[in-house]
């Protein structure tokens, strides 16, 4: 191992190509991971902020707010289920909004939520015609006190404050009282308007085993509801699963490329070292020791690449103007990407094992210059 590390220190140039290539791969991995996390965050913030263990949708709604309707009767049955401690109604309208000061065609996408139970970072619902706004609107020119005109009916909603990380399905959100939401829905989506007391979904707090409570809720409503965990509700938002799956596939392919790069590089290096390995085996080095050196070198190369890649990710996080690219830097992502890259390097270097094993110590003797 010391031999392998000393070689890297004395002949860093030999490893520069591998470090450079793996660094590019590490950057790509962390960029892809950051984009995925950013996209997911911008899609699921509104659900993650809910003060709930469970979200109750109506049956056949396929976890879609748009298709789901919960009547006051159903709500009462849910509230009566043992283990349910708090129930709040929630509804959302997805519309385009005009921002004062912006051009007439310069619309922004808005999801207006009506809520009863305050999501994290929000107080209880504001008065009619007022709403707390997602911080992302600030980057689109919205200021506290502005009045946005929502939808074709241009329903006015006044922004009275901002809140972080509550985006929904890629759009910024407004948080208003249930009545404001119903008014907006009636004015702009008359076909989808709901009666008094009706919500699209319920957010439920439980005590004890949440999944058992979920099953009890669905039994208590006679199958009129589908109750899922908050995380599952977030995953069910349109595009979230697809984004995750597509990005994870690209990340997987990138890791395969990392394996191939490491495998090729160390295969070449091993071929170059056949004479040296023959000599070392002849004087008593075991194949295990020599192969261990190859793995150590691959791991060091990967760690260097991961470190530079992490630095790049941090730099990107610092320099990207907010509201441009949906890039989100999570410490877990850096750690997982680095571990994945190191594992890829170990797997890649393993392709040299057969070559190292096959080096014959007898090749050291009787070979003329």
């Amino acid at each position, binding site marked *: 191992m*010391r*031999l392998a590390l*000393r*070689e890297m220190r*004395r*002949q860093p140039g030999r490893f520069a190509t591998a470090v450079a290539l793996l660094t590019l791969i590490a950057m790509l991995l962390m960029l892809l991971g950051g984009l995925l996390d950013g996209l997911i965050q911008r899609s699921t913030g509104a659900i993650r902020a809910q003060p709930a263990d469970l979200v109750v949708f109506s049956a056949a709604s396929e976890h879609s707010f748009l298709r789901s309707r919960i009547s006051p009767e159903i709500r009462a049955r849910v509230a009566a289920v043992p283990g349910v401690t708090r129930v709040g109604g929630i509804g959302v309208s997805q519309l385009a909004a005009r921002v004062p000061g912006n051009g007439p065609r310069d619309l922004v996408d808005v999801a207006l939520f009506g809520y009863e139970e305050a999501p994290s970072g929000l107080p209880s619902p504001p008065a009619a015609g007022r709403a707390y706004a997602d911080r992302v609107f600030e980057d689109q020119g919205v200021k506290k006190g502005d009045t946005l005109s929502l939808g074709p009916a241009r329903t006015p909603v006044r922004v009275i404050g901002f809140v972080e990380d509550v985006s929904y399905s890629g759009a910024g959100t407004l948080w208003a009282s249930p009545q404001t939401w119903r008014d907006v829905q009636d004015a702009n989506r008359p076909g989808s308007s709901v009666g008094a007391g009706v919500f699209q979904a319920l957010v439920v707090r439980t005590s004890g085993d949440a999944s058992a409570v979920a099953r009890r809720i669905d039994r208590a409503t006679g199958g009129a509801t589908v109750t899922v965990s908050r995380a599952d509700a977030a995953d069910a938002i349109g595009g979230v699963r697809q984004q995750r799956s597509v990005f994870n596939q690209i990340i997987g392919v990138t890791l395969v490329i990392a394996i191939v790069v490491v495998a090729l590089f160390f295969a070449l290096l091993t071929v170059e070292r056949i*004479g*040296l390995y*023959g*000599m*070392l*085996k*002849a*004087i*008593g*080095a*075991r194949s295990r*020791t020599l192969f261990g050196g190859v793995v150590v070198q691959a791991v060091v190369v990967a760690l260097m690449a991961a470190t530079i890649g992490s630095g790049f990710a941090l730099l990107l996080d610092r320099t990207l103007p907010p509201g441009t690219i949906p890039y989100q830097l999570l410490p877990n992502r850096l750690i997982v990407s680095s571990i994945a890259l190191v594992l890829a390097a170990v797997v890649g270097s393993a392709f040299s094992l057969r070559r190292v094993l096959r080096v014959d*110590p*007898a090749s*050291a*003797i*009787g*070979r*003329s*210059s």
Partner: protein
Amino acid sequence: MTKDGAPALRMDSVRKVYPTGDEEVVALDHATLTIDHEEIVALVGPSGSGKTTLCSIAGGILSPTAGTVVVAGADITGYSARRLTDFRREHVGFVFQTVNLVPFLTARENLLVVDEIGRRTGAPARKRADQLLEELGLAGRGRHLPATLSGGQRQRVAIGRALMNDPDLVLFDEPTSALDTQLGEQVMELIRDEMNSRGIAAVVVTHDERMTHYADRTVHITDGVLEGSPPR
């Protein structure tokens, strides 16, 4: 040095056969050779005569097809490849013809490689390396890389490495082939002096008859058959 006064090397009717397709090539045929400790034997033969095979079997790099090989009292004939590897590391010294030193290690580190590939001892090994470098006239060259040393100095480093494990037997593979006559003789003289002063047996493979007078005995090999000459 050797166990119970046993000879450094005893090969008894050693045969080595390589299968090539349907036929067999006999590289070594019933070779019988005994080398006492403190004895230097020159092994002379043309290329393809089997001297490399003999040397490899004597050093535990190859296993014989038939016969017995006893190095310093240890019968290594039936050793597994792994046990042979350990045996070489602990009991045999090698000086090779071509790839000899690790290019990215200094002279001193090249000696310490022997310690690093085995069970590391650390400080005693460093002390021994420094002592060997001094004895071989390389005291000021310990921190030099092989590329900055002369051919003769490189051979000295290789000899130092072969002596690091305090071997029972040292095998020299054409140690003078890359050197001119004068330097070759100096190296042979050095080999003789170092081996004699430490009482270590050595086999020096060469095809250069001019170098044989540094050995206690010359053994010729032709087509895998040994023809011994009487001790001088």
